[in-house]
């Protein structure tokens, strides 16, 4: 069989790799080496260390509804915990280290623990055991993070920036850039309307633009780009690259494998709370796609 080709990265024998594929892999590998060399120059500096974390959700009142008032009272009096306490072990022993300048994709099927992991890295969820160490305060950008929906887009921009610790002068200087980047003015003067009147895509775009206006040491993006249109996705991918050049670390949760391929050089594949693979995006996403097809 003459289409048996050696993988230039791992040296494993692969079946049916076209010359174009080999070329692309070699290109990606060169880029990766360049990046690693660049990292070697600035030093291999970790920004997020996740050390064997377990996350357990405790859900009260599952199954039996709210319970009757008398049973709730007797529970309070006798100090028993609710019998309807259900535990969901969402993350079961994950460890990885992220370094400066890396963009890491998180993939996996629904309910595999991706968003949970990001929330924990952001410090919004307590870990049951293990520890998460971060450089500074990571910023989480989630898809359902609505801001102040009864205030105008303009006020949301100003308040969001002030809350991130910018001064009034900085906000003034960056305001126009943020609005332009979000592109919400393309369909009329939306920035002076309350945010509750926005479509979900527009709101997500404005939120991303606000968060991306600041240089973050660690930026966690949870499906926040999924609702934007193609033009916006392209812009935000460029912005993520810029953020990485400014020596930050970016995590991206997405079900869009293309945007993972385009933005991330490293990908972690989670399945049922375990790390199934951690490595170069090309390899891991391929493996993941094959796995999903076989199901």
């Amino acid at each position: 069989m003459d289409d048996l080709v050696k993988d230039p990265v791992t040296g494993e024998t692969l079946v049916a790799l076209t010359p174009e594929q080999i070329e692309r892999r070699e290109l990606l590998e060169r880029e990766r080496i360049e990046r690693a060399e660049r990292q070697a120059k600035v030093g291999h500096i970790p920004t997020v260390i996740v050390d064997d974390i377990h996350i357990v959700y405790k859900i009260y009142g599952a199954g039996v509804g709210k319970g009757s008032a008398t049973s709730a009272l007797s529970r309070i009096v006798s100090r028993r915990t609710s019998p309807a306490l259900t535990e969901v072990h969402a993350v079961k022993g994950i460890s990885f280290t992220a370094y400066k300048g890396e963009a890491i994709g998180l993939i996996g099927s629904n309910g595999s623990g991706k968003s949970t992991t990001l929330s924990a890295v952001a410090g919004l969820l307590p870990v049951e055991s293990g520890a998460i160490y971060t450089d500074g305060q990571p910023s989480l950008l989630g898809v359902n993070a609505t801001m102040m929906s009864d205030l105008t887009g303009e006020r949301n921009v100003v308040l969001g920036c002030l809350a991130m610790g910018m001064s009034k002068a900085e906000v003034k200087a960056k305001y126009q850039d943020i609005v332009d980047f979000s592109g919400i003015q393309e369909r009329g003067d939306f920035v002076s309307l309350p945010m509750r009147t926005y479509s979900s895509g527009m709101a997500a775009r404005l939120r991303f633009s606000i968060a991306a206006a600041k240089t973050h040491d660690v930026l966690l993006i949870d499906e926040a780009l999924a609702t934007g249109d193609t033009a916006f996705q392209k812009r935000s991918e460029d912005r993520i690259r810029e953020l990485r050049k400014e020596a930050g670390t970016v995590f991206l949760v997405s079900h869009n494998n293309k945007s993972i391929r385009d933005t991330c050089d490293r990908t972690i594949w989670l399945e049922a709370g375990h790390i199934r693979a951690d490595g170069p995006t090309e390899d891991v996403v391929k493996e993941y796609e094959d796995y999903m097809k076989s199901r």
Partner: protein
Amino acid sequence: MSTVYEQRVAGIAGANPDAALSPAELAAKYGLSVSGKRPSLPSYTRQLWSRRQFITAFATARLIAMYTAAKLGQIWQVMTPLLNAGVYYLVFGLLLGQSRGIPDFIAYLCCGVFVFQFTQSAILSGTRSITDNLHLIRALHFPRACLPIAFTVIQLQQLIFSMGVLGVIMLVSGQPLTWHWLLVLPILLLQSVFNTGLALIMARIGAKTTDMAQLMPFVIRTWMYLSGVFWAVSTFTAKAPHWAAILLNLNPALIFNDLMRYALMTSVPASILPSHVWLITAGWALVFGLGGYIFFWRSEEEYGRG
């Protein structure tokens, strides 16, 4: 524990001097901190100070948004306290006839209603300040104490409208404008510190125990009846046992009410105030302001979790 990929990258980057370190040692070496850990009190205070523009901008934005759905808009800023005073005048002044024995009852009543309203709304909005803004807390990182403080600032801004109305009521009901009116400033300052502390305490309790929001209106109403808003508390402290009278007279809400009346009304003599009144008031403000702040900070890492 490092993965295959990390080892390979480390290989390209040259010998990794950190390979032998445990995660905790590695974190210590590069100065990483545990995610979501509560900052120390001084650094928390510094963070909070750097967000002062956020607090005022947030308060202003909320205040403007508050009445945008109403047709009369900002007029409600003035209408709400007036209607409040009107209802209490109807019930306690006309129907129950509590005004007997109190000179200038309308001025007396409005003063009490407006001043107590400030504390009352600071507590109520403080209780909900975390639970009603969970989305903001989960979206952005900022010291959470910004929220209860901002809501107290909103109440203060509303009170300033009420004070304008109160000033007019005072002059119309025949109270002269005197230098004593300047006492309003230190009184409001102390009351603001006191209310901020209360709002911080209630914010932490309300964030943990959501049932609190249902219970608070009753607690506050009881407190209001004990605070001499509609009648002179001296009518029942005279009959009460000595210790109870002392306790009733130390009630901070009563002291703020009486101080404000003393400042604005010539018919209220200094003798209704307990001795060392400024010392007691400053004490209340300090204990609650500082205590509330520390109490809130001690749970900082837990707000918005769940």
